[in-house]
């Protein structure tokens, strides 16, 4: 072992970890499907529920404050807590995503039975808190289980189930609207109730399958000792974040500016697309409003299908040809698409411009990360991913508190104008991408094959 004095710190710890097969990786990530179904419902169904309950459109941004706030506070807190947790029976990460999934299921189950806006707001906060409780330890679980060389596959599987969950949530709204009649006393259609119920089952069901089929790796006695001695809590976490922000590469700072316009614009889309479709493509009746919500589910499902189809190819293309120009072009496609949407009156034509949005969504989910991981050392990726998460939720937070005023005073309470505003912000984000300098691509393992084998 060691020739040093018998000091635990100076003893080598040796572990072996088997590589996982693709089916094992897929089962491990399956829980993401349910969690993302829940996010899909939040994106498409929650705002119409507010509307069914009589909320004003200009209040939508502030009613959605739960998302950015819980994302900003709960994810890092739960992440830090799970780092220091180990139970021989329940594991390290599983208790958190199990509790999160149970919370999601209960909130999704209760959501359609709300009778007032304040109840919907309260449930959204609880739903968002549950989603974030499940999400952060789930990502850490994948990092625990997979060696660094397989992490790419792990996160790819995660993206796959993210797309599948959100797409099915959206499509369920459209399909159930065709199949289920009637509404609750508060005016929420039963087909919306059906989608929420399916979400409640998917959320806990898929997480249970992952939990029961994927064992956690128990820590060694030395690791347990280190875990107990670890200085945790908010103080060290905030100090680490502060240090990482101070050391942040200039290009990542520029990316933060791109993210500001990109995420501010995206949130506007999610909040106002249902209203735009209802205003321009359906009769101004209760029935028309319901059909517009279902159609929005189909439109959102459609762009997620486009995302699904192009994501893998797009990420591979960006890796080869450069992420900067690819992401810029994709954002411009979304901007052009959204600039067309408010002028359409035919509900079928909207699927054409939304192709651009779907391509951009694929890029947003993957391409900037290709750039980001090249900018920072992978040993600090955890803290920088947290900072990137802030680069997403802070624009959302700013949107929540500023856009209500902009919508009323500058955009004339017109949802179509909100979508145009969103298009303009995505276009600005696209142009700002050109300001970034991209570091050269990391060479692949295959390059070694071409190397001379010297020394013999």
């Amino acid at each position: 072992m060691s020739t040093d004095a018998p000091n635990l710190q100076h003893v080598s710890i040796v572990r072996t970890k088997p590589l996982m097969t693709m089916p094992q990786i897929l089962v491990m990530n399956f829980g993401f499907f349910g969690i993302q179904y829940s996010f899909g419902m939040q994106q498409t169904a929650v705002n119409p529920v507010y509307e069914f309950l009589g909320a004003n459109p200009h209040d939508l941004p502030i009613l959605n404050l739960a998302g950015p706030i819980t994302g900003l506070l709960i994810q890092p807190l739960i992440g830090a807590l799970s780092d220091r947790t180990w139970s021989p029976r329940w594991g390290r990460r599983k208790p958190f995503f199990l509790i999160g999934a149970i919370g999601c299921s209960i909130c999704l189950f209760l959501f359609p039975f709300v009778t007032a806006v304040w109840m919907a707001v309260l449930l959204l906060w609880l739903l968002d808190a549950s989603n974030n409780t499940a999400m952060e330890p789930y990502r850490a679980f994948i990092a625990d289980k997979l060696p660094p060389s397989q992490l790419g596959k792990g996160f790819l599987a995660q993206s796959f189930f993210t797309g599948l969950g959100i797409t099915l949530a959206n499509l369920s709204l459209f399909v159930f609207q065709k199949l289920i009649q009637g509404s609750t006393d508060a005016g929420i259609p039963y087909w919306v109730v059906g989608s929420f119920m399916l979400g409640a089952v998917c959320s806990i069901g898929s997480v249970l399958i992952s939990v029961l089929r994927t064992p956690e790796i128990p820590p060694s006695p030395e690791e347990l000792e280190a875990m107990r001695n670890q200085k945790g809590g908010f103080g060290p976490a905030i100090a680490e974040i502060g240090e990482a922000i101070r050391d942040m590469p200039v290009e990542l700072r520029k990316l933060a500016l791109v993210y500001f316009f990109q995420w501010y614009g995206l949130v506007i889309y999610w909040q106002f697309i249902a209203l735009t479709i209802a205003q321009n493509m359906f009769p101004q009746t209760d029935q028309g409003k319901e059909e517009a919500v279902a159609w929005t589910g189909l439109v959102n499902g459609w762009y997620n299908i486009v995302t699904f189809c192009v994501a893998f190819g797009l990420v591979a293309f960006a890796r080869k040809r450069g992420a900067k120009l690819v992401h810029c072009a994709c954002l411009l496609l979304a901007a052009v698409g959204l600039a067309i949407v408010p002028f359409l009156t035919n509900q079928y034509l909207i699927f054409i411009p939304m192709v651009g949005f779907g391509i951009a969504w694929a890029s947003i989910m993957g391409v900037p990360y290709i750039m980001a991981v090249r900018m920072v050392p992978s040993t600090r990726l955890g803290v920088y991913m947290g900072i990137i998460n802030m680069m997403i939720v802070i624009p959302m937070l700013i949107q929540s508190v500023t856009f209500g005023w902009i919508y009323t005073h500058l955009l004339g309470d017109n949802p179509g104008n909100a979508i145009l505003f969103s298009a303009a912000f995505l276009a600005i984000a696209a142009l700002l991408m050109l300001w970034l300098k991209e570091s050269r691509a990391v060479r692949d393992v295959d390059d070694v094959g071409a190397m001379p084998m010297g020394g013999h």
Partner: protein
Amino acid sequence: MTANVIVTVEREFDAPRERVFRAWTQPEELAQWRGSPGWHVETDTVSGELALGGRHHHVKVRDADPSTRVGTDGVYTEYFEPDVFVSSEKITGDPGIDPNVPLELRVEFTRMGRDNTLVRIIQGPYEADVASWHGTAWEAELTRLADYLATTNREAGR
């Protein structure tokens, strides 16, 4: 048999990260300590371009039988001094390693306390029956690194 096991070895050193990172990567330094006991690195085979995409090479020779040689040819697929480097490598001359299948060596350098460094080596994939042997070999090699760092510290202090 399939190579599907990753070996992880960790050890803390009484030296700052910059110092330990240099000992791992600078050709003239790594030649002083790399290799298990009973082996040494042939000094004039060591080369290295210390940057992302840079290539590096060295040959280890058995002390008792100089005809037994193990060559390492690698390329840095990640290089952030003094945080981490990742190298994709082909090893020739080791009967337990397929020379046609690249191995990934990832070495992380984490600051501990005021000026100590936790080194975490992650390497593989190995076949299951040789994985633990390689873990033990790394343990022995890290002891040589500790001795090397201690010696160079003493010399610098004189």
